[in-house]
């Protein structure tokens, strides 16, 4: 079958249903704040945000694939590029850049200059150690896991902590092969 050509991030973003970013931003903010109130421990909040992100990711990936028509990526490099250029654009309307590849191409940084999640946000001193955008790392982790890549996503830079950009380090742990559908005893 003639594979449908992959579409550019902007094209997709233009085509999908969109809503005011404020709603998204404020909602996320309110959630984070409520989590802080309920869970008290910043560490715990980071954990939960990541968890939420993961749960979102494992569902979102399919929509991404369906709407973007991206073919299976040949390698992790390509995957990262697709996430940065198409994924972020398609959902958040911003594009990220990929950099800091390590030698064997299993670890890179996704750098985000602009991030709708943090409009208006200022971290109070009581919340040092909070990874406000931790949901993002979760999403990436979850999504990649669904296409059988176990990854570890960590924050390297965070504008809310005074850095000049948001930088996520994505580390490919292992590429899980398609599990062979039947056991030996069959």
């Amino acid at each position, binding site marked *: 079958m003639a594979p449908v050509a992959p579409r550019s991030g902007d094209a997709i973003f233009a085509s999908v249903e969109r809503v005011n970013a404020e*709603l*998204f931003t404020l909602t996320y903010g309110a959630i984070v704040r409520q989590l802080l109130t309920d869970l008290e421990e910043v560490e715990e909040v980071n954990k939960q945000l990541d968890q939420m992100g993961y*749960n979102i990711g494992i569902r979102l990936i399919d929509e991404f694939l369906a709407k973007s028509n991206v073919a299976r990526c040949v390698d992790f490099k390509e995957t990262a590029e697709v996430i940065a250029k198409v994924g972020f654009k398609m959902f958040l309307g911003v594009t990220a850049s990929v950099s800091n590849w390590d030698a064997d191409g299993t670890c890179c940084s996704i750098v985000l200059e602009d991030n709708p999640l943090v409009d208006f946000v200022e971290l109070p001193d009581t919340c040092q150690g909070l990874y406000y955008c931790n949901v993002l790392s979760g999403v990436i982790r979850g999504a990649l896991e669904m296409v059988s890549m176990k990854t570890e996503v960590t924050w390297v830079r965070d504008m809310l902590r005074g850095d000049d950009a948001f930088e996520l380090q994505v580390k490919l742990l292992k590429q899980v092969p398609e599990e062979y559908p039947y056991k030996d005893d069959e």
Partner: protein
Amino acid sequence: MGREVSESCVDSLLTEMVSSYCDRFYANKPDLAARRIEAIGFQVGLQLSERYTMERPRFSDHLEAIKFICKDFWSELFKKQIDNLKTNHRGTFVLQDNRFRWLARMSVDPSPENGDLSQDNPPAENKAAQATSMHLYFPCGIIRGALSNLGIPCAVTADISNLPACSFVVRIKA
């Protein structure tokens, strides 16, 4: 034109928020979960009302404020207005949205196998209803937040006659 994000961002965020609160944090305390979700909505409503009432004269009475919610506020959020507004002129307003966006993707499955909600086990019907209502505490909170920020303390409840129609009942505290 302000910046935008894909709708599925909001959708999945809300879905996940609700399920986290109902299934993880307050798994078997639906009322607590509900309060939290409502609270989140409240804050959002508060801030949105602050934002969307810029550049407009102050409302002279409750009705004006409610109308604002129905028209401008709603269309900012959902790109559509409330379809029908009823009131008993004694502080109760019913805002009906015939196709409430946040329910648009929701199909409730009455069959008990539906494992989404971890309530004890009431009959599947109201089990499903409860699950859906969990998703409505957020918009209720938004409305309440917006109104109380406009100086109208009130209580907001939602009721779903048949998806995806949904009507919000605003009771203004005398």
